[in-house]
């Protein structure tokens, strides 16, 4: 393609990316560097249905004057990035200096919102992603080998978790694992422990969230792999069969290598998605046991006082973390690309 043709061809996409991806990103970064103005507080008398009291309030005129003078707010630089709600460098250094043991140090880390969220998010990402790829792959191989008559039905059935809205899907599971729900009750019966509650125990809640994550994302892997399986060269497969390869060997030496680029693709997308885990935490009301960076953003914006700078900073940190997480996969893709060229 000529450079000029390519330019005109690519222009609409480039514009859309600029407006919908680059501009918001710049806006979020700016917001994370600035803080709201210091509030000018005054003592006022508040009266209402329950009588009058002296209370502190914001002096609107004085605050408005500050806002007019500097509409962006106070420049804070990277201050917010290093405060307790985010990277908490001072707190981490203090915990390291005063540590009694490595375990106690990690215990202290778990007390800081960012690291507590990271502990769950990374555990979730690195268990859910490989397991959902494996599950998706085996469903795809399974569906691909049944007779054509029931294949359509099976595909629809396997896709259901993806069709269900994540929040609704997690709510359904949440009710099922309730101590009075069908699964919760079954577990109590199997464990012979009437006090067993998935929602009251951190490890069990983590397992529930991970199971939900695999359940809801496996169909995505399944669809991609199923499409890939339609392109497997039949002669390679047949020659493997003639050579006496078992079913397992066919999968291991023919199907998996053939699907490898797709596996990389699914891993890439799912690492990104799982790192931003959010809906199940809300759906399962799990914030007492598990939080994620996305949940912190939601919490900062959901209170009666919205904490925009804090939320913007966490957003930028999320982007940075996703970039770090994807580096190995991207480097690998780049190497493959160079190797082919």
């Amino acid at each position, binding site marked *: 393609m000529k450079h000029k043709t390519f330019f005109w061809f690519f222009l609409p996409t480039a514009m859309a990316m600029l407006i919908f991806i680059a501009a918001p990103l710049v806006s979020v970064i700016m917001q994370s560097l600035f803080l709201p103005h210091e509030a000018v*507080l005054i003592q006022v008398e*508040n009266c209402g249905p329950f009588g009058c009291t002296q209370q502190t309030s914001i002096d609107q005129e004085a605050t408005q004057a500050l806002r007019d003078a500097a509409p962006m707010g106070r420049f804070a630089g990277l201050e917010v990035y290093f405060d307790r709600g985010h990277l908490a460098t001072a707190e981490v250094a203090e915990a390291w200096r005063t540590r009694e043991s490595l375990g106690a140090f990690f215990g202290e880390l778990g007390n800081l919102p960012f690291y507590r969220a990271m502990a769950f998010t990374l555990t979730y990402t690195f268990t859910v992603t490989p397991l959902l790829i494996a599950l998706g792959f085996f469903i795809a191989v399974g569906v691909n080998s049944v007779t054509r008559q029931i294949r359509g039905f099976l595909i629809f059935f396997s896709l259901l978790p993806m069709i269900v809205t994540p929040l609704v899907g997690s709510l359904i599971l949440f009710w099922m694992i309730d101590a009075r729900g069908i699964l919760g009750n079954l577990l109590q019966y199997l464990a012979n422990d009437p006090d067993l509650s998935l929602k009251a125990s951190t490890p069990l809640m983590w397992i529930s969230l991970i199971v939900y994550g695999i359940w809801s994302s496996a169909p995505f892997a399944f669809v991609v792999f199923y499409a890939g399986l339609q392109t497997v060269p039949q002669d390679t497969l047949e020659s493997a069969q003639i050579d006496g390869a078992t079913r397992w060997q066919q999968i291991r030496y023919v199907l998996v290598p053939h699907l490898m680029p797709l596996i990389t693709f699914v891993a890439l997308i799912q690492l990104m998605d799982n790192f931003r885990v959010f809906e199940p935490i809300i759906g399962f009301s799990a914030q007492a046991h598990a939080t994620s960076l996305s949940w912190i953003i939601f919490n900062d914006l959901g209170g*009666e006082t919205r904490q925009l700078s804090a939320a913007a900073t966490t957003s930028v940190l999320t982007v940075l973390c996703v970039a770090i997480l994807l580096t190995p996969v991207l480097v690998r893709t780049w190497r493959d690309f160079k190797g082919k060229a």
Partner: protein
Amino acid sequence: MFLKNTVAAIALTVAAGTAMADCGISEGRVSIVGNEFPAIQTVGAGAMACATDSVEVSTNLTADHQTINLPGMQGNPAEYTSAIVANSSIVALMNEDVIRPLDDLIAAHGQDLKPNQIVTINGQAMAIAFMANAQHLVYRSDVLEEVGVEVPTTYEEMLAAAEAIRAAGIMENPIGGPYAAGWNLAQEFNNMFLGYGGQHFEAGTAVPNVNSEAGIKALEMMKALSEYMNPDYLTHDSNGTSAEFRAGNMALMHMWGSRAAVLTDAEGVPQEVIDGFAIAGPMTVGGGDTPASTLWWDGWTVAKNISDADAEATFKAMMNGIDPTILSQDGVSTQAVWLIDGYEPTDAAVGVFEAANSGTAPYPMLPYMGLMHTALGAELTDFMQGNESAEQALADVEAAYTAAAKENGFLQ
């Protein structure tokens, strides 16, 4: 969801606009955002009745109101001309200066208001309150009779009653309270903390003061109560506890006045729950005089960034929403403790009245209270799960609050 509600609301407006009350509005736009519970729906419907060919009225009543009311009022002109708020959520609107003083409108059109309905801040009327609310005890009189225990008036008595019920083998987890991690858990702490005589901040400043003796005692009492709660209590908001109470699994529950009246109205509630259901006032704790609860009002405001004509139309429409005649509608008088002229307290109101009469403190209307509430909701769960000490949890709350308050310019 939001769009759907709005469309539905506008459709309703158009349908209702043909044969409705004359509110004396010649023209204007009225758009209301607020929480959804029966009393607020009544007020919204009253305002909607003002719609005519030249007056557009729409409502968006949703549990997510407090995340959308501020952005919806910051534009110019504001999307929402009125926000229905409580004494906690008005602060966020005050902080950002998006609501207007109502003195001129009250002088012109508000003669029928009672003085205690007008919420003034620094001498300016900023909201019109129409109902009061508080958390208090609801209980099963039949269960208490069975074990021969008086209705508890203190949290210590509540623990004793719960032990008696458990010992008698009637219920394993007789106590209920909205302890869901987040806003609810923080609110239960606020109640208990105020009951022990705590003050959230050092007087006149934004410096936190929860890591105190009162704070530790409050947490220890909450922990003691949680031993008698459903093990899933950290996921139970007042919807969750209502369901447990209706199912007959609880005998003593801390509940909102605005929900108490209709608690046993749902379908399929066992007869003994309906018969045994009773309402009492809020309880004290640790020998204190002030109940471990907070007083709330719900009221409406008028947006700042709208034309005077729209402000006037909004004021008149909202006045129609809280017109004393709504009390004659079926079931309205039990929906809330109305502050409206002509309201006669019903049996369901006894809890909130008891709260008001026994000197319960109003929820603090401070610019930085919302940040404290958020910090409490996120940091207390570790203590409730037994992962850390009360002192550590409260130190975490203060650290989280301090970081947020510095970011928002309340602390240097």
